């Protein structure tokens, strides 16, 4: 995502909404560029080996459509020679270029290729691509984009290879290609007279000229063997259960050393002096290496500090702990969480920078019979992925080899090259499995550290962060205060709507802190609100970052959904209305929101062309009604139990969540049942969608009840799972039911990794209120409401 962010920053600083191909906001809509024209334009892109075009009269099973993939760095590459290899024994090796951190993308993306080429998945092997975007296309595995951007290119390559195999078989048999058909790993004569395995014609097939797009045929949905079925397990499932799966730290190189780093507690503090006397006494410790620090905006530059190099990880950590370091002061040493929250609340009460205005909200509020308003707070949070950061680097004779769990392998490669003053062509990045990512592993400071240490000591090194390092050296999810105001007329009708967000921006990592939420973050539930009130304003209050603000799974959608969806339930209660009915009423009539009329022309639409991926309130209403129906909204529940609802569109996917809570006599909250309704367009892998929703429920419960990164005098006071707790199996939300709205392939696939998270916390808080009358407006609120 971040190089996409950099493009967005550039566009914003240039005072443009965005260049058409760097930030395809509402491009198609605004410029009234037809889909056909758009395709022709993007088809001209040099990075595409095959252009995706609509050819009149071709027998397509679906209409290809443009996506934001063409606005990403290095776009897409559609070249079977790069992604497909077929051995003479029939083994098909597919290159998978997205990082695997739990969503199943490493499996689901090439599965689309295998399906379209009629490969038998049991004879498919996967090869993980190294970081090389000119070769593979964009590899940034974040923003919930893997299937959304790659289903079509994979299918196109699959269709190409299938045709090449058919052509090779037809040639071998001396018949016209129209008489043969590829099916389940072999090509046969349609009359059943002959058949031949893929492997036997592979060499000839792969030497064929790449077919023209108009000669390709695509499967109809009912011909899919794997897509949409959810029957193929993750490629690494067996290895994961036997301990053979390889994560970041699971590689050993000859002569490899081990390192741990002492980093400053406060961002920007520098080493004044270091005493390594005690550290050097630890058995196994060999030397120390200083790492230069940085002050934001410094992108992903290391925090700096002192690395201890040893002959095993344990010795390195013990040595690191034994260092005596004097740190300099930093301008951020005055940052205190509680005081900063008070500042944000004060700012939220004052007029902010207007990001979107419809109708005349000022008049609506001035003339209102009554104004109902509330504020909702969310602290900084940290990813706490299970695998602490780690990287292996080997610098030798001007070349650098890296093995690391990274979400952006090409970004890690270019950023590390830049940090070491190298040409990226001299740097190689191999991607392991990621033990969780959630956005943290998009930021490659840990990779740069390993590379710097390896170069300094002249040996390969495995640089391991501890849990404490991970908690304290984060790129934290933004903190926020969301203030919501509703203007009510004498009939209690909502005639004015104000949403003011005060939240430091992640742009502060990249450029001098603009002090306001960016267009990108504004597009995550603030500016793009589906609320259909006629007089509406979205504002940003100023807030400057005092730590490294990064993105966390679903980004600013978390605080926005928390604020908006809690507020609507509060408003419903105030007006004596049902919260679900109130939510649907506020969203208003079914419509695809017209971004020009709605003053959203600069809208960030997750990088997708708006015309193809509009904000469709009918689909939002659809998931709300589906979740409510499945959960039995309105039914009688035992004492102490109640339902809460919330819905949110993010990553162009619509999710509604109904949480059932049970509060016992001592105020302990448990969650016996949750229903999540998801409209993600065509669903490539329903089984992994369900697992993402189940996981999102757990993460949503964690952030609602537990997550708060606390700063005192600039330093994080949390350290490990005892003071940054996460939900465990003794309290997880039971029976998470995922209900997927079924669509054909023609309804564009949208994001899945992130959209399940935002609605959970407000649905939970709304349920707790319904059960107890106790309203929480500040996250986290703990697990006891007594």
């Amino acid at each position, binding site marked *: 995502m971040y190089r996409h962010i950099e493009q967005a920053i550039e566009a914003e600083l240039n005072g443009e909404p965005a260049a058409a191909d760097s930030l395809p906001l509402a491009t198609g809509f605004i410029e009234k560029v037809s889909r056909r024209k758009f395709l022709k334009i993007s088809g001209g892109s040099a990075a595409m080996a095959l252009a995706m075009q609509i050819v009149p009269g071709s027998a397509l099973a679906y209409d290809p459509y443009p996506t934001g993939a063409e606005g990403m760095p290095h776009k897409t590459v559609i070249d079977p020679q790069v992604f497909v290899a077929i051995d003479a024994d029939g083994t098909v090796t597919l290159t998978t270029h997205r990082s*695997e*951190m*739990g*969503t199943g993308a490493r499996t689901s993306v090439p599965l689309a290729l295998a399906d379209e080429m009629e490969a038998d998945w049991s004879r498919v092997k996967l090869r993980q691509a190294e970081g090389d975007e000119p070769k593979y296309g964009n590899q940034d595995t974040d923003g919930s984009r893997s299937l959304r951007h790659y289903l079509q290119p994979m299918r196109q390559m699959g269709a190409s290879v299938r045709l090449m195999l058919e052509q090779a078989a037809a040639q071998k048999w001396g018949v016209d290609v129209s008489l043969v058909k590829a099916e389940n790993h072999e090509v046969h004569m349609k009359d059943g007279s002959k058949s031949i395995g893929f492997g036997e014609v592979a060499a000839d097939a792969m030497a064929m000229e790449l077919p023209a797009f108009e000669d390709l045929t695509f499967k109809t949905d009912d011909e899919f063997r794997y897509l949409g079925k959810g029957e193929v*397990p*993750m490629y*690494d*499932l*067996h290895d*994961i*259960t*036997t*301990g*053979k*799966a390889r*994560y970041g*730290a*699971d590689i*050993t190189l000859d002569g490899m050393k*081990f390192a741990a780093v002492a980093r400053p507690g406060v961002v920007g503090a520098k080493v004044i002096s270091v005493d390594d006397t005690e550290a050097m006494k*630890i*058995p*196994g410790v060999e030397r120390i290496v200083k790492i230069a620090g940085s002050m934001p905006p410094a992108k992903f530059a290391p925090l700096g500090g002192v690395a201890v190099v040893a002959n*095993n*990880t*344990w*010795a390195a*950590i013990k040595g690191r702990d034994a260092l005596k370091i004097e740190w300099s002061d930093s301008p951020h040493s005055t940052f205190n969480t509680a005081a900063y929250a008070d500042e944000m609340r004060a700012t939220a009460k004052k007029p902010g920078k207007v990001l979107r205005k419809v109708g005349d909200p000022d008049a609506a509020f001035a003339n209102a019979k009554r104004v109902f308003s509330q504020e909702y707070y969310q602290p900084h949070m940290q990813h*706490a*992925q*299970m*695998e*602490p950061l780690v990287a292996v680097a080997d610098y030798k004779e001007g070349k650098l080899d890296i093995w690391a769990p990274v979400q952006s392998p090409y970004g890690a490669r270019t950023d590390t090259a830049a940090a070491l003053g190298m040409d990226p062509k001299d740097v190689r990045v191999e991607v392991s*499995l*990621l*033990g*969780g*990512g*959630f956005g943290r592993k998009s930021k490659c400071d840990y990779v740069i550290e390993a590379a710097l240490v390896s170069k300094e000591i002249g040996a390969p090194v495995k640089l391991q962060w*501890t*849990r*404490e390092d991970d908690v304290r050296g984060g790129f934290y999810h933004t903190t926020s205060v969301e203030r919501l105001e509703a203007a009510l007329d004498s009939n209690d009708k909502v005639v004015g709507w104000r949403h003011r967000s005060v939240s430091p921006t992640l742009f502060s990592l990249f450029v001098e802190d603009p002090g306001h939420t960016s267009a990108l973050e504004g597009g995550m539930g603030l500016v793009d609100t589906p609320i259909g009130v006629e007089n509406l304003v979205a504002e940003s209050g100023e807030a400057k970052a005092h730590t490294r603000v990064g993105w966390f799974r679903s980004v600013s959608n978390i605080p926005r959904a928390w604020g908006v969806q809690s507020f609507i339930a509060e408003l419903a209660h105030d007006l004596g209305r049902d919260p679900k009915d109130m939510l649907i009423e506020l969203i208003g009539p079914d419509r695809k929101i017209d971004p020009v009329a709605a003053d959203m022309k600069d809208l960030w639409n997750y990088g997708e062309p708006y015309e193809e991926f509009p904000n469709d309130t009918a689909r939002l209403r659809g998931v709300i009604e589906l979740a409510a129906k499945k959960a039995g909204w309105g039914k009688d529940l035992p004492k102490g139990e109640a339902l809460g609802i919330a819905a949110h569109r993010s990553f162009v996917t619509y999710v509604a969540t109904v949480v059932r809570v049970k509060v016992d006599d001592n105020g302990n909250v448990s969650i016996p049942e949750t229903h999540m309704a998801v409209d993600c367009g065509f669903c490539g892998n329903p*089984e992994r969608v369900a*697992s*993402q929703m*189940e996981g*999102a*429920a*757990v*993460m949503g419960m964690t952030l609602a009840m537990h997550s708060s990164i606390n700063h005192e005098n600039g330093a994080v006071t949390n350290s*490990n*799972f*005892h003071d940054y707790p*996460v*939900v*465990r*199996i*003794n309290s*997880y939300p*039971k029976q998470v039911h995922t209900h997927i709205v079924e669509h054909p392939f023609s309804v564009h696939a949208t994001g899945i990794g992130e959209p399940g998270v935002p609605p959970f916390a407000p649905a939970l808080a709304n349920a707790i209120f319904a059960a107890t009358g106790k309203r929480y407006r500040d996250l986290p609120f703990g697990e006891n409401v007594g």
Partner: protein
Amino acid sequence: MAISIKVNGQEHTYDGDPSIPVLWYVRDVLDMHGTKFGCGTGQCGACTVHVDGKATRGCLLSLESVAGKEITTIEGLDPNGNHPVQKAWRAHNVPQCGYCQAGQIMSAASLLADNPKASGEQIEQQMAGNICRCGCYQRIQAAVESAASEMEG
């Protein structure tokens, strides 16, 4: 003095720092990477191994404290990776990122060895030492329950 230890049935001796935790010994010295580092403080369970058959956190367990004992890691749980718990994990498609799963499986295997008739509540209590940040708990619980019925039956 060198420490003798048996890991997955193989005898080893170690003459380095005897306070090295079993986690780092198996990972960095024996080069066996199935056992994972998660928190270093015994709170997450990613490093769970069996010591004489009992689930134990490898990150806090010094090698000298288990001298002469038998350590089993995920690699040694079953020669073919077909322990009932491993099979149940696959049948239920439990993992997401998978990083914590070796520890989860080792905890579950130990729990069911002790109590094959563990109730849902007992499973929750005894698996509560293993964190899964991806949030696979619903499937972990289902997998442990079905492994229990397989082991019982």
